[in-house]
């Protein structure tokens, strides 16, 4: 009789858990990291490592201080660190990267209860705080391959400043100045395809986000191809607008979220004072997520329709 096991459901389990998903995300981020190192040299790797190490250290420390179970084993702090580094210019002072990790992990993530409880994306919020605080350092861009003994290593602006005439092939490959992880659309797309294939993200979300930007910039007389290839759009759409904790859980909500992100990004890029609007768009839509969740989009089983039988 010992062979007959009686247990409540569920009876089937999947091996997928938080650490497996985060591991997939880390793998998907690797092409963009390699692209960043190729274009911006060892400095990009140093900034990324500093962000990762400080994020994990802050996570360990704050869980220890708050006497809670330690969560560094789920790799989420590593993902936050990599995403934060990808949103920073390669020449950023190291202590600013550490300060950004502090804001991301302690203020945005752990003070609200840790993984799954934060209402805003930690990496995006930390980037915005750094941008609001250190405007000069956050917009000092290195030229691609400038580390190979170039005389004029510091560029004045990203392609976003003069987007209409930028070379789309350079934007696609990543041969432009910008943040560490955002320059190469090709590398980010590889990661996005991997995540879609592994069913970690729903490809409709980044497609809606990018498609919205494409359509609206086209309607406003901009160069839509360059708009979707430049800046942090690919990075934000694939890796940040698909974050589980800070975006709506059901598909309809996800699409509203992505649509809103696209509209706000376009508005800031075309009419705003900042050249880039992806991070602001994602943060604003993060804040709207609880409201989007209140729109009923799934009919409960057996719900009666108005004036009719079930």
């Amino acid at each position, binding site marked *: 009789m010992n062979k007959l096991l009686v247990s409540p459901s569920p009876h089937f389990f999947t091996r997928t858990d938080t650490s497996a998903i985060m591991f997939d995300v880390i793998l998907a981020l690797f092409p963009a990291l390699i692209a960043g190192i190729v274009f911006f040299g060892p400095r990009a790797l140093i900034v990324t490592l500093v962000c990762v190490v400080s994020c994990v250290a802050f996570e360990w420390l704050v869980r220890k201080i708050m006497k809670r179970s330690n969560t560094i084993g789920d790799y989420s702090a590593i993902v936050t660190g990599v995403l934060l580094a990808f949103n920073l210019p390669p020449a950023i002072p190291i202590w600013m990267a550490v300060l950004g990790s502090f804001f991301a992990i302690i203020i945005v993530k752990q003070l609200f209860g840790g993984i799954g409880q934060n209402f805003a994306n930690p990496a995006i919020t930390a980037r915005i705080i750094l941008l609001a*605080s250190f405007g000069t350092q956050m917009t000092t861009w290195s030229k691609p391959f400038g580390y190979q003994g170039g005389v004029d290593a510091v560029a004045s602006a990203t392609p976003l400043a003069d987007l209409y005439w930028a070379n789309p092939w350079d934007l696609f490959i990543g041969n432009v100045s910008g943040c560490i992880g955002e320059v190469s659309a090709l590398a980010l797309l590889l990661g996005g395809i991997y995540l879609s294939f592994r069913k970690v993200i729903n490809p409709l979300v980044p497609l809606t986000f990018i498609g919205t930007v494409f359509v609206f910039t086209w309607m406003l007389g901009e160069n839509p191809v360059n708009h979707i290839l430049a800046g942090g759009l690919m990075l934000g759409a694939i890796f940040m607008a698909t974050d589980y904790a800070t975006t709506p859980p059901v598909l309809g909500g996800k699409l509203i979220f992505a649509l809103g992100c696209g509209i706000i990004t376009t508005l800031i890029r075309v009419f705003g004072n900042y050249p880039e609007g992806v991070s602001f768009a994602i943060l604003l839509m993060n804040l709207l997520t609880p409201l989007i969740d209140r729109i009923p989009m799934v009919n409960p089983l057996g719900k009666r329709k108005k004036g009719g039988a079930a």
Partner: protein
Amino acid sequence: MNYFRTFTKGLIKENPVLVMLLGTCPTLAVTTLAMNGLGMGAATTFVLVCSNVVISLLKNFIPKQVRLPSFIVIIAGFVTFVSFMLRSNFPELYEALGVFLSLITVNCIILGRAEMFASKNNVCASFLDGLGMGLGFTLALILIGAIREVLGSGTFFGLSIGDWFQPIGFFSSPAGGFFVFGCVIALVNVLSNYKMSSKKIGCASCPNASACGQAEKGEVAE
């Protein structure tokens, strides 16, 4: 009534900004520099003490139906006095505080103390209450202003704390104001041992209980 407690309750236990969350608008707006916080706090304390004393003296002569307009007239009189004084003696501070100086008239703290305390208690107690609440307001503003000034501008009461420090502009911005405000409220909650209890949900456990008229009647919030 214990006069000493009447004075000290405004400092932390019933701090008007950090516990009762009144007067949030000037708190967030003028605290980019510690000096502004001090000036705003001093001006508000002066108005609060004077209006508390005068309202306490007149409490038997003001008809209940028109008490709010009467209080506002008294408060506005003192605010006008303070703004003329500042304008002639401290023009720089007057410029820095701007419209928020006139807005002391509609500061919830002053009207709140007039309604909840001065119109029910004697002159001496009202004076001490106004002084305690005003000092609590001033201390909160100086604290928030000092944190924001040191981190956001790299100075303390206008003195540079050194070139090694790179100011973090976020703390000078309104968002940073809300952030520091929230952190200081959390600190005060720890200091005053305020605990969120699931058993005592009702007016009696609210930190505003002693300031709020409803709690005395024993009403319980639904």
